[in-house]
């Protein structure tokens, strides 16, 4: 069902010394250094969606200490690298997850923990849950289970670390490169007037990740319905006091 397989992506990571443009073996030393550091230091967002969040505190505390791997929890999406979707994703939550995802700075990784993100899991018959997470966000790793034990979570994170080291974990680019596909799926769930404060197309243009799959009929629909977002109204006195006066 997913048409993502038909989109050509770079299959092999760039290994040092094999680049066609330069034959200098030191050409990629900084890239390798930064990729190494990215693998060794991961900030996970402490926003855990559903019931699977219960398996993260044991992984962080004394018994299965995740700080040994360099992973520490951070509280805002701006500071975090990993977005952990633990558990079922109701449609209400999915909106907030997408807002959170778009606020993170790249490179960012999405991990779908628990079977509900894989194919609906235990709540597949529900009218209010999203079944396949990777239709709405690019997912780097799934850790199946209900819930997976902390050892399984740490095992999955170690696989992610190995992927980052070899340079294969660049799914964040796919969001920019195939924004029309993701936006289409999001609009199917949320309606045609779905918009987020982040201007993905402008960002794609700025970081030169714009492809011909970024714009399409769904982004045209977005442009039709897009309204400028206004700041929230700040009131200094509450309504009852105003009514009394």
């Amino acid at each position, binding site marked *: 069902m997913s048409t993502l397989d038909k989109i050509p992506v770079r299959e092999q990571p760039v290994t040092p010394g094999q680049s066609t443009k330069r034959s200098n073996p030191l050409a990629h030393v900084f890239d390798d250094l930064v990729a190494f550091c990215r693998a060794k230091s991961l900030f996970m967002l402490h926003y855990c969606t559903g019931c699977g969040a219960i398996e993260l505190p044991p992984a962080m505390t004394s018994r299965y200490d995740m700080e040994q791997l360099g992973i520490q929890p951070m509280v805002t999406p701006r500071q975090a690298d990993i977005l952990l979707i633990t558990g079922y994703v109701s449609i209400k939550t999915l909106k907030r997850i997408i807002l959170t995802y778009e606020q993170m700075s790249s490179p960012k990784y999405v991990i779908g923990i628990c079977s509900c993100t*894989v194919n*609906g899991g235990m709540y597949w*018959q529900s009218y209010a849950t999203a079944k*396949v997470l990777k239709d709405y966000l690019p997912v780097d790793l799934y850790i199946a289970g209900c819930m997976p034990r902390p050892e399984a979570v740490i095992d999955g994170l170690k696989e992610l670390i190995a992927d980052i080291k070899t340079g294969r974990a660049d799914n964040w680019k796919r969001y920019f490169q195939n924004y029309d596909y993701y936006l289409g799926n999001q609009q199917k769930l949320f309606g045609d007037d779905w918009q987020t404060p982040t201007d993905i197309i402008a960002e794609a243009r700025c970081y030169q990740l714009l492809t011909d799959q970024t714009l399409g009929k769904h982004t045209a629909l977005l442009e039709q319905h897009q309204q400028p977002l206004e700041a929230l109204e700040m009131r200094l006195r509450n309504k009852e006091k105003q009514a009394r006066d």
Partner: protein
Amino acid sequence: MTKALDTLLDSLLGELENIRVQRVTQRRIRVDVDADALPTLLELLQGRAGYIHLSAISCVDWVDELQFELVYHVWSYETRTLISAHTRIPREPGVYISIYDLYQPAAFFERDIHEMFGVYFEGSPNMEKFILTEWNGPPPMRKEFDSEQFVHQHFEFENYQPDWLRELEARGGGITKRPEDIR
């Protein structure tokens, strides 16, 4: 004191007509009344028998009898008894009176029942959606709403063929009941 309140309760319930009382266990009483007598019953229970705590309001969908059954659970701290007051309303208009004036927490339960079953409570302060804010379909807890059919119409599942399953099937094993048959 408990015995005095018990006899008070019995005399109170004896005063009303068209009422059926059944003591389910020592601490639970089931009362069935008509729809127009229920607010009066609750007011009497609250004022004269000490049932000042509203635990919950539930709704049951009797789709074959074309009725909704509303159940009001009230609790007394002194006698520590729960009274479940059952009443039936016709399914078609699905409108009932709100007991917000008696018990303020009722507003929350009535809002929930309105969202899930479509029953409108007149006099309830806020009937807006708060759980199913992204939902535009029929009230989902009604028995005529088939959630599974809805899912099959509106969502698409992933074709799940992981490597380890292929290896098992190559060796002659595999799963006995395919997910497509269960779904």
